[in-house]
């Protein structure tokens, strides 16, 4: 199967006339796996085919091109291929893109998480594919996630213990996806939550798709004390809640698994909660799908994943996507 890099992080398939997560002038259709910036078409005047939730989020983040909604499991017949989206469990609307054609079947994972994040539509996968293009963000055996049950307890306890001590808990979480996931896990507490502006405007899409984000409002400096606060990690250095005397800060990310993040960010707690699958799930997934060839992207350590796939007799190659100039 022929493909080439296109756009910022995308792929163009000349034989199929489509591109994935990146614009190409010759592509008849561009499929977008999810609404994170590194997968979103940079050229705003392009077209995007994605799930309804993804398109709604893209629009809120500035996308202005033409849209085609494709629901999960619904087959889109194109002249040279058939495309189906599978829920990827990464963030709301996130999809794996399954392409069937004469050249064989291809599963492009985008970013994915199994077991799926509770703030998504779940996770589902085709049972086989000839080619797999998979992300491997956490492609080292030092990354193994706790269950959502444990993580939920950890997150709720941090909020409750901090509030009980008369202090204000701050969760540092990325604006789209992680922020809403944390809010969803805290929702059963029914304690008022305030979320930083950039994340707040995206919450309506989660509401509309039936994800309970609890009792939340937009961050307000004057009244934020005693609420549970959600902000991206960059917010602290620009004065977020700096008027509140006693705060406790938890950094929520897969990278929180690394102890070095503690001093780099000066936080009270590291909560390793990721919207990507861990190393062991990744290898398992490849084994189950057992494709003819695996292409590994989005990782600084492709050789480690390849080493493990080799032991399972799975043919693989590294597909470098980073550091490509924008078209």
């Amino acid at each position, binding site marked *: 199967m022929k493909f080439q890099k296109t756009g910022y992080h995308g792929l163009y398939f000349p034989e199929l006339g489509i591109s994935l997560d990146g614009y190409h002038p010759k592509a008849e259709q561009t499929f977008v796996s999810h609404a994170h910036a590194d997968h979103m078409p940079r050229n705003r005047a392009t077209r995007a085919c994605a799930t309804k939730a993804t398109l709604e989020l893209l629009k809120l983040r500035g996308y202005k091109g033409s849209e085609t909604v494709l629901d999960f499991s619904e087959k889109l017949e194109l002249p040279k291929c058939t495309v189906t989206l599978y829920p990827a469990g990464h963030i709301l609307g996130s999809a794996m893109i399954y392409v069937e054609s004469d050249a064989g079947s291809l599963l492009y994972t985008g970013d994915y998480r199994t077991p799926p994040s509770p703030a998504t539509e779940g996770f589902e996968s085709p049972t086989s594919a000839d080619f797999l293009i998979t992300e491997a963000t956490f492609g080292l*055996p030092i990354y193994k996630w706790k269950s959502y049950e444990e993580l939920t307890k950890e997150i709720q306890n941090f909020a409750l213990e901090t509030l009980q001590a008369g202090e204000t808990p701050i969760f540092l979480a990325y604006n789209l996806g992680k922020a809403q996931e944390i809010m969803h896990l805290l929702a059963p507490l029914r304690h008022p939550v305030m979320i930083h502006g950039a994340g707040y405007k995206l919450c309506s899409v989660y509401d509309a798709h039936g994800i309970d984000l609890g009792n939340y409002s937009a961050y307000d400096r004057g009244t934020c004390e005693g609420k549970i606060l959600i902000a991206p990690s960059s917010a602290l250095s620009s004065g977020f809640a700096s008027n509140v005397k006693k705060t406790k800060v938890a950094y929520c990310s897969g990278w929180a698994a690394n102890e070095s993040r503690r001093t780099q960010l000066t936080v009270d707690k590291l909560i390793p909660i990721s919207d990507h699958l861990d190393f062991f799930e990744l290898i398992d997934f490849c084994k189950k799908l057992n494709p003819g060839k695996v292409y590994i992207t989005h990782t600084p350590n492709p050789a480690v994943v390849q080493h493990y796939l080799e032991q399972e007799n799975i043919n693989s190659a590294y597909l470098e996507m980073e550091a490509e100039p924008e078209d």
Partner: protein
Amino acid sequence: MATTFLQFCTVVQKIRETRGSNAKTRLFADYLAALETADELNLAAQFIGEGAFSELSGKRASVGSRTSGLAAAEFCEIDYDRVFKPCRTATGSSSETIERLMENIPAAIKKRVPENLSLDDIQEIAVNLYSASGRDQKKEILHNTWRKMAPIEIKYFIRMLGQGSLRIGFETRSVVASIAKAFGRDREAVRYAHMITGSLGKTAALAKENRLDEARFTLYTPLSFMLASPIESRAVENLAQYVAEEKFDGMRAQLHVDGDTIKIFSRDLNDITNSFPDIVEFFSQRELPATVFDGEICVYKDDTILPFQLLQKRMGIKKPGKKVLSQYPVLFIAYDLLYTDDEPIFHLKLTERRALLEDVAGKYTLPITSQNSLENEDDVDTLFKRALEHGNEGLMLKLKESVYEYGQRKKSWLKVKKPGGSFDTIMMYAHAGSGKRGGTYSDFTLGISVKDDERYEEEFIPIGKAYGGYSDDELKRMNRMIKEITVERYGPTLGLLPKLVVEIEFDEVQVNKRTKAGYTLRFPRFRAIRWDLGPDDVDTLSDVEEYYKQFIEKKRLPQHKNPSFTFE
């Protein structure tokens, strides 16, 4: 109930995760207060502050990060080069990597059955590692130990084997504060007992039993050294409160003498007596009563103090031969007196100790440092210049009213050092940082140019490795640039195109035959990233050689006029 090593590690981890030194101190104080036996107390204080062995023992388990890494890879049944090393690069910490692999990898999980080892067990294992010879024996002991441990125990066990701090933001000062808090003792009394005993474990036991006043100085047991702070960070308000001494280009040492029994200790409290039979001879001839000096060992020949580089030729040698002794004769120059007339005197003021030191030196004909009073900045400048002319490093300013206290005591002692030299170098390799710089490329191998040098085929060869002196923003900018100029990858190391020029500063150039250049730099650090310069502007090996030659051959002012020490 007796404590287990797992409980100890859990408290240590909690201290790591807690912000604020008071809260950290409280956590450890509570733990210490609940311990039942003196033995446990001793080990807990030692483990957290000194390592698997007490500092006084001078022992080390000698398990390097390669040994433990290879052992861990084998235990986890993973490839060391292909899997372990990339993991270590990502975390920036070998012990943390091992902890997480032990936690995650099925093969390792299957082998481990935590057995609630006691602190005593840990001590015993450390002794076994110390006695074991060779990597294979050590590996076997490590494997057998890890089988009985939880991942968090494995992490801190490995860190303890490295001796020193556990890297949890909890240094000796905090351990001392915890001991005081645990048993309701005066912090100064605990600190004093620690200085005398040189042992956190013994100090804790004395504090618990309310026997701190029994902490007595004993001859031939080294005391922790008093250290100086750099003057830049401590503005001096009233110079007249200080006296100035030259900062010798030598090696700090503590000398204990009683008649013909002499012991010399280095700054890290190791017994270095055997390396300096000439000093032993010098003092035993003089038949001093029990006395302890703080001072400096210098190479001294023809009325001149010679460079530290020459002293280095003596430092490694346990039993120097006649030739070495005559080539590099040394002298112990005293500058403080800690024990005399059968009692310790470090609680006396500097002026009082100095008077006693002068008495002793006069009576037994000993070299002691010259002391100068100060009135203004000009005095400092004049003395500083003369110190450099003598070949010394700079000046020490000492507060007249200060008592002798171990560690860095704020403004009591200040050092004024000469600015180092500098070279423009090329960045050759970037290494993934460790500890708090984990995850970025923060250590750099810097090279000098040899492209017109017939002895070499390369364009550049390494001259030193630097990992400091840049700001966070500069580090970010460098990392962006590095991404663009990377041509090779060797695990955690990136090979770079010769593009980035760094001006480095260093204290001294030293000969080192084992390096490609034949020279290494002492304390290299960044002075500036020269975005304005290119690879053609880089200094050459001949420049380095010239610098060294000038330094070594520099005329050093003989001691007969305005000497940096007196020896009548």
